[in-house]
């Protein structure tokens, strides 16, 4: 089977399994295109990812490999063990999401760019956890976001959202 190499924007290479690569829909789509153009070539397929740094790519790949392992376990386990397995997966995901806000930002952007739906769900759920109950200014501060609305636009939105701000 052909090796797949994902290349981060700083040039670091990561060899991954086809099964794990298939969880990244962007990579899966690139692989299909490369396979179509190169035919049955057995050279490693190198997929450059200019929008993802090495550190974040490692984290994303850790997720993909672990999820594949869980998927195989779920398929192989009897129904009676599914609830226990679900608890194991949730515990692993909770541990996995113990990241700083900065890491979470890079992770959600990578999950979006690589199109990994399950990771995107996990990241956006974690973002929602950090946003719940906060004012717009507190959310900006939490995520280090630069204000992009003019004072007039901000005031207009504030007025129409007064019901939610109290």
């Amino acid at each position, binding site marked *: 089977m052909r090796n797949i190499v994902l290349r981060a924007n700083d040039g670091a290479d990561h060899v991954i399994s086809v099964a794990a690569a298939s969880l990244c829909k962007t990579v899966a789509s690139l692989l299909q295109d490369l396979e179509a153009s190169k035919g049955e070539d057995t050279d490693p397929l190198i997929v450059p990812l200019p929008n993802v740094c090495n550190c974040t790519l490692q984290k994303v790949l850790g997720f993909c490999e672990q999820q594949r392992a869980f998927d195989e376990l779920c398929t192989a386990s009897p129904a009676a063990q599914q609830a226990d397995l679900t608890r194991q997966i949730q515990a692993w995901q909770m541990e996995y999401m113990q990241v700083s806000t*900065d890491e979470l*930002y890079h992770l*959600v*952007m990578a999950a*979006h760019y690589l199109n990994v739906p399950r990771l*995107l*769900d996990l990241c*956006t*759920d974690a*973002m*929602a*956890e950090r*946003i*719940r*109950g*906060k*004012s*717009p200014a507190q*959310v*900006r501060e939490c995520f*280090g*976001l*630069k*204000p*992009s*609305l003019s004072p007039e*636009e*901000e005031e207009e*939105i*504030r007025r*129409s*959202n*007064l*019901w*939610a*701000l109290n």
Partner: protein
Amino acid sequence: MRTPMLPSDIWTHVASFLSIKDAARLSGVCRDASRLQLEHAYLIPVARADDDGSPLIEHTDLTPAEGFLWASRRWASARVLHMRLQYSDASRKEWMSSMTQAAASLSRLEKLALDCSSERGAD
């Protein structure tokens, strides 16, 4: 200060894990967030049908009329709408009818859940 921005579709995804009230607050964060749409909306209309004016159900995320209006402007591409109704039998039927009609115009809607139970008894 860092200058990263998150695209609107990520904010939309984040909003699907929030109450309507938190999603509305989120829409004031930045320009991209102000364009967020609702993929999943969980709405609990505020109704004061009891004699003493208290809601029939207690919930921290009750959605006032302004919240419904806000949500209705952003749910055109919603996939899931969940309404928990707490009105009297007569108005509940009106609500169900009007929400079912509204849902029919949502082209991407996969699920419309109308929960008509209340603490005072259910359908």
